[in-house]
């Protein structure tokens, strides 16, 4: 099946086979632009009793077919070519069903080739179950036991620069050989192992693993310590994902025959669209997908794409782990009313054992969103620790570096430079009020200076990610117009001061002539000024489609991006929430330690942003 030329494509059908639901979307060309037409979903059927992923796909597509009034199915398959208003020009799919792609990675030094291997696997959409390294402090038998216990879908073995160590690589290969791991899917098949290490050790690795595993050799991910070369390894991971993992998953062989484009792991597809948008807009971007079991964070800083999966942070199956990692105190600090510790614990455990329940009262919603803030914060902390520069790189110094010797391996995440923060996942996308999603993103990530906030309306980023591979224009257009719900910019000065001290003066000049929606429409073409004290939050209305010029005058000691106490003028796009002004301080950000005071401040901020309805 061949991929049609982009100019010939007028209709696109895309599905995402998730762990619980399969989502289908139909995109059509309307005039000169591509727009989302309808969306349908059905339960995923990869598990027993169906054990055929295509059943769920067909059900989801059937819903799309009914809603769009367009014939897309021909019996038990998808019509592959659009003719006479029937079928779609191209069908594409992503998948995370059955736990997605689960990998183990190996490296000689954990912080060097180990970390590079981890980045290669994560960027390819895998969940990294463990990193085995020569210096990880575990004894050989512990490593062997771990490999046998985890049973990954695939292993990425790396280590040594080209011409570097072979002894350590041989040792890792021997460990793997001794463990003799079996593939998770498809009993009787050999476990795929990708070797992306020192070229000099290829023979040794082939000798040790050639007969026991489905060994694939590719270019070194770290040919020199000063440079990473992750793409060849990522391509091999995709290939093997298709050849081994997908081919052995129930129904995927049939699914792969329906699409001319390889089925992509869901996280890889989400990362792809974030990367595409950051590149096209020339901005630094962060995307987050908070799910029931895992939280994925994607970032593009200095054109470097990074993805991390926090496998134990989520809002249902992993909610207890959020409590364990964040601590009760950190969760309680976000709840704007007094709550008993026991009560909070019970609510959290209930959510874990009944993962599909949703909050039934305002209090429950506030608690859930408090937990989401902590899950986001922890996932972002993990992301920052992995999205780092290369370690072990030679530095060049001058005498001016005497007292400020920066180390290598510093995080690439620079919130001052962050242009867009996109949230996705039930708790963000389905929040009853968009201001709640904005507030969760702000509290979880603590963006600095001026950052645009958005949420994914119906979680179609995965489909758009795979679409960006074959039709970048359609993917970008649908992403901007139908996928994203713009919440508006967040202005947060860096600095700390005393409560009530003058912090920021803002003037918003709304541009005339732009299309606008909502209650901000009447304010079009006007100017509004506001003065905020430290510890205050406020919102200036600027609707979706509106543009405005923000003039920010921070007080001495506060920085909005131009330097301490310096004014900044910037153009901003509006959103459903408006321009959020957050003068609660950064570096450090602190909530009042006294409970009464904290509850009072939280209520004050919620009221300022109109986050929750008034409690009776």
């Amino acid at each position: 099946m061949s991929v049609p030329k982009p100019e010939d494509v007028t209709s696109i059908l895309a599905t995402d086979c998730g762990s619980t639901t399969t989502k289908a979307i139909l995109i059509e060309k309307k005039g000169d632009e591509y727009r989302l037409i309808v969306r349908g979903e059905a339960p995923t059927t990869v598990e027993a009793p169906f054990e055929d992923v295509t059943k769920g796909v067909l059900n989801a597509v059937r819903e799309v077919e009914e809603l769009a009034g367009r014939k897309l199915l021909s019996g038990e398959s998808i019509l592959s070519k659009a003719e006479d208003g029937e079928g779609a020009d191209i069908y594409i799919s992503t998948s995370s069903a059955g736990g997605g792609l689960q990998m183990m990675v190996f490296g000689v030094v954990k912080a060097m080739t180990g970390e590079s291997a981890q980045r290669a696997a994560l960027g390819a959409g895998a969940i990294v179950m463990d990193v085995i390294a020569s210096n990880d402090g575990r004894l050989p038998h512990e490593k062997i036991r771990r490999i046998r216990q985890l049973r990954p879908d695939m292993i990425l073995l790396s280590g040594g620069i080209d011409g570097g160590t072979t002894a350590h690589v041989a040792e890792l290969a021997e460990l793997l050989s001794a463990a003799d791991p079996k593939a998770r899917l498809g009993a009787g098949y050999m476990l795929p192992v990708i070797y992306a290490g020192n070229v000099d050790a290829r023979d040794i690795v082939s000798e040790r693993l050639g007969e026991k595993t489905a060994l694939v050799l590719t270019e070194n991910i770290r040919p020199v310590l000063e440079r990473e070369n992750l793409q060849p390894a990522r391509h091999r991971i995709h290939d093997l994902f298709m050849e081994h993992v997908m081919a052995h998953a129930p129904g995927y062989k049939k699914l792969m025959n329906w699409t001319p484009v390889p089925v992509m792991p869901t996280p890889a597809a989400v990362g792809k669209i974030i990367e595409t948008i950051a590149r096209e807009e020339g901005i630094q971007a962060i995307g987050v997908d908070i799910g029931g079991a895992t939280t994925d964070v994607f970032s593009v800083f200095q054109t470097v794409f990074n993805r991390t999966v926090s496998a134990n942070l989520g809002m249902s199956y992993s909610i207890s782990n959020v409590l364990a990692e964040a601590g009760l105190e950190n969760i309680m600090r976000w709840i704007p009313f007094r709550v008993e510790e026991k009560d909070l614990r019970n609510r959290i455990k209930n959510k874990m054992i009944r993962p599909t329940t949703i909050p039934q009262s305002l209090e429950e919603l506030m608690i859930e969103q408090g937990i989401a803030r902590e899950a986001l914060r922890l996932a972002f902390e993990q992301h920052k620790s992995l999205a780092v520069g290369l370690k072990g790189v030679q530095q060049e110094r001058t005498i001016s570096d005497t007292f400020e010797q920066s180390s290598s391996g510093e995080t690439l995440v620079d919130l001052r430079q962050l242009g867009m923060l996109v949230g996705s996942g039930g708790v963000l996308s389905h929040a009853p009020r968009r201001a709640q999603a904005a507030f969760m993103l702000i509290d979880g990530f603590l963006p600095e200076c001026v950052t645009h906030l958005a949420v994914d309306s119906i979680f179609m980023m995965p489909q758009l990610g795979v679409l960006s591979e074959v039709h970048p224009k359609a993917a970008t257009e649908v992403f901007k117009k139908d996928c994203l719900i713009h919440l508006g910019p967040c202005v947060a000065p860096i600095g700390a001061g005393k409560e009530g001290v003058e912090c920021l003066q803002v003037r918003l000049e709304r541009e005339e002539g732009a299309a606008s929606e909502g209650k901000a429409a009447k304010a079009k073409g006007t100017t509004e000024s506001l003065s905020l004290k430290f510890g205050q939050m406020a919102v200036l209305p600027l609707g979706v489609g509106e543009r405005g010029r923000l003039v920010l005058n921070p007080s001495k000691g506060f920085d909005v991006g131009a330097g301490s106490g310096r004014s900044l003028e910037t153009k901003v796009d509006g959103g459903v929430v408006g321009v959020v002004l957050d003068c609660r301080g950064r570096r450090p950000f602190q909530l009042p330690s006294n409970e009464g005071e904290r509850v009072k401040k939280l209520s004050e901020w919620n009221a300022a942003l109109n986050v929750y309805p008034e409690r009776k």
Partner: protein
Amino acid sequence: MNRVECLLIIATFLLFASLAGTPAMARAESDASPEEILPDTTSAQAGAPADPASQAAVWFDPRRVNLLVIIGLFFFLVLLFIRKAVRGRSLYVRKITGLSAIEEAIGRATEMGKAVLYVPGIDDVNNIQTIYSMVILGTVAKLVARYETPLIVPVCKAFVVPLAEETVKQGYLDAGHPDAYNPDNIRYLSDEQFAFTAGVDGIMLREKPAANLFLGSFFAESLILAETGFSTGAIQIAGTANIHQLPFFVVACDYTLIGEEFFAATAYLSDEPKLVGTLKGSDWMKVFVMGALIVGAILETFGVTAFTRWLTVQ
């Protein structure tokens, strides 16, 4: 801290205190005439009171109370912080990039399949910098043993060789890899400064170690060593208390420990409560000294000399 250690510290303190008084006695003795110093045996035998001059030569000199107070304060601070550290209180020690980079440098050598070169300076064992360097060498040896990477230690002074050998051997033992210890890698080159430098340069050019650590007392050879190391593409970490050599290290090395950072290295790397407590105690003592200097300067400016006079050692 156990009782024995407490007693030892108190005994040392008393020794210092008595030393503070001893010169006074000696001076009092020297000021006195021989007749005054020698006891009058006749009057003593007769049961008469002793000579007043000999009574003045006592163990305690009140003019040196200032020293006693300052030494007492120093001991108090050190003991206080050791106690805090031993009880598990986390004592903040700021990040010293150069020391944190030691493991990174060893990691680089491991990935590249090359050795780590450790030069403990060119001074003898009687230099405190060499002793500190040996303590750091122990930590480095432990790390390289864990990473299974060779360690080369060229030595300039013959007396340092057995010390370096034992330190490295112990490091390998502690890491559980005694078999990996290679005594041939502790290399005595020459007692002559530039012959030694030429020898180390030769090692760098021939064996191309991926990480060079220059930690100890260095003089004119510092730039020659660091430049050669840079040309081989190695990560270099240097540290010396000879501040006149620091600019050379700063420009040619990846990381440089500045002055006192070098002495803080042992506490920083080992995280041993007693060492960290001592480091914190001496840091606070420095803060006290700086504060005293500022207060003294201000008081002197306003013509109040009592404080300065009290601090003057007579």
